[in-house]
């Protein structure tokens, strides 16, 4: 029983990370109908940025956290301005391929800047004593991850449903021209969405770095898993992203625990295939289909 609990708790921790990355995909998708395949790279830049500011330059953790997230958000803005905005015919497919290119570019730059070695980052709390829950053990950082993810999830939900800016962003996604006619500055909304989603990725990078360590190539797999989680939960639904992430994390962990450790990455992609065949809108994504 304690074995089962350990697998589930491990799954929830990893799943929360996937969920947070999925959230980044969602924010951008909600505002622009775009899938940004450089999302994983923002996670990597957040982690490595936090390492440089916090560990190398010795900034206090909170300042390094905020600065790393801020810088990556600016990079998100820059990506939109430099690489996506100037495209003459902004077909979704063209834009998505540009983001794939951006991800390769960012990875290359990170490799030049930080080298190929992985780096270790200190946790948000100094204690490395595991927390014991009914025979299973959890790192304190895992609690931070789950807490921060829940906080961001709630915040985003409220932002989307309760604020004018949030609603304006959604309006842009539904029909950009119509929103523009109604007086919504759609260009600015798109920029905001890019900054927000890049920042979310960076938050993910900062909070997982103490557990996973960070290196220039950590983003690819995390980005793909986050994408799977977003698809599983239903693209565009924030709660779907959380659910998808946790479900994926727990499935992976149980797969490793009860079947074979080789199956871990296969689980994510089998789930993605399954969901695309059976329920293409995702578990909580029905609303997204009705929208058009």
């Amino acid at each position, binding site marked *: 029983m304690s*074995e089962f609990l350990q697998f589930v708790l491990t799954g929830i921790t990893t799943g929360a*990370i996937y969920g947070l990355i999925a959230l980044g995909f969602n924010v951008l998708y909600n505002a622009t109908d775009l899938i940004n395949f450089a999302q994983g790279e923002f996670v990597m830049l957040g982690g490595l940025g936090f390492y440089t500011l916090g560990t190398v330059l010795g900034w206090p953790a909170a300042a390094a956290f905020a600065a790393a997230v801020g810088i990556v958000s600016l990079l998100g803005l820059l990506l939109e301005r430099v690489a996506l905005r100037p495209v003459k015919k902004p077909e979704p497919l063209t834009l998505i391929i540009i983001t794939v290119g951006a991800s390769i570019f960012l990875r290359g730059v990170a490799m030049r800047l930080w080298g190929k070695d*992985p780096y270790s980052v200190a946790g948000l709390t100094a204690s*490395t004593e*595991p927390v014991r829950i009914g025979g299973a*053990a959890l790192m304190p950082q895992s609690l931070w991850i789950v807490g921060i993810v829940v906080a961001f999830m709630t915040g985003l939900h409220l932002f989307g449903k309760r604020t004018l800016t949030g609603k304006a962003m959604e309006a842009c996604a539904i029909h950009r021209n119509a929103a523009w006619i109604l007086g919504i500055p759609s260009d600015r909304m798109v920029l905001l969405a890019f900054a927000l989603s890049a920042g979310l990725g960076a938050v993910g990078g900062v909070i997982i770095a103490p557990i*996973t*360590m960070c290196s220039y190539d*950590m983003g690819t797999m995390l980005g793909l898993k986050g994408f799977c989680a977003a698809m599983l939960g239903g693209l565009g639904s924030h709660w779907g992203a959380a659910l998808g992430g946790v479900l994926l994390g727990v499935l992976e962990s149980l797969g490793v625990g009860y079947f074979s450790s080789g199956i871990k990455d296969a689980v994510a992609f089998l789930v993605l295939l399954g969901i695309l065949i059976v329920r293409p809108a995702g578990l909580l994504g029905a609303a997204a289909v009705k929208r058009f």
Partner: protein
Amino acid sequence: MERQARPWIIWMAAVVAVLGLVAGPKAAFSAEPYKIGGVFSITGSSSFLGDPEKKSLEMAVGEINAQGGIDGRPVEAVIYDTEGDPTKAVLAVNKLISKDNVLAIIGPSLTPTTLAVMPIVERVQVPLISCAAGIQIVEPVKPYVFKTAQSDVLAVAAIYKHMQKHGIKKIGILTVTNAFGVSGRDQLVKQAPDYGIQIVKEEAYGAADTDMTAQLTKIKGENPDAVVCWGTNPGPAVVAKNMRQLGFGVPLYQSHGVASPKFVELAGEAAEGIRLPTGKILVADLLPDADPQKAVLKKYITDFNQRYGGGVSGFGGYAYDAMHMLAKAMKGTGGDKAKIRDNLEKIANHVGISGIFTMTPKDHNGLGADAFVMVEIRNGTWKLLD
């Protein structure tokens, strides 16, 4: 007509003069250098291997020439970069053989690049001393292929010997699912019965995995006496941290793949008490004075750091050992490749960086389990184990 032909004759004369100038001084040298080739992954993702190998080869050539060369003839190294790419390795080796006419080749740095060039050197019969670790390079033995890097076989043997001495009988293994981990797993499974060791649980993890608690929980359930993890950074550091997290207190053995200060930095506190096999260069200062390799190692470390301003590692030693053994084998052969090959096979008790080499027709690596020493990480640094 006669007037028009004149410039042509002048050109001819000029060409002849130039040719004479080029050829002249060459003929004046009585001792033409012995040319040997080097192919390393000097740039690209495995430059951490190729770069020190290139530097060490140049250093070894310098040492040999300073002592008067081989039979009075200097050695000249022609070195090409493979960028870790098997195709480029093949091109470089072809160029060394057909254009540069080298007598022997040192390198490549990686197992895949070495496997790619082996058929060529076998066909044209040029001795090759690889700097890669894979056991497939010398097993089965190919007449013209040798290697200097220690293989996994010896690392596993060193771990199992230590376990046997300390009464460890049941182990769990956790290996990474790439070439390094799979090869390590095969050796762990193959050699276990020889040392009376039983593998009670066999698990694996992906190179980019961020959490191994699920695998470790399963291993813990089988109550092993120790755990062996086989991978390169950062996975093994995660394993060390996860074991702490689970309160799983049995000894953890790691592979030589993480024998570097980087691992201690990554695993932090969780690195304490981890045991692993390593080449002697990492612990040269700790070796007893009676160790025959100590003097050679210290000289190599000092010279390398002096010449290149630091950055010494065990990898450069592969090329350094290769060059010095090749120099021994070339003595008295007059540049006959078959004779060089025969002499390489007869090298005995060559004290090198990676170990003490004794080649035989059946063993083209020539190292024993004593090429590795077991160390334990204590207070963030290495401590020799017996």
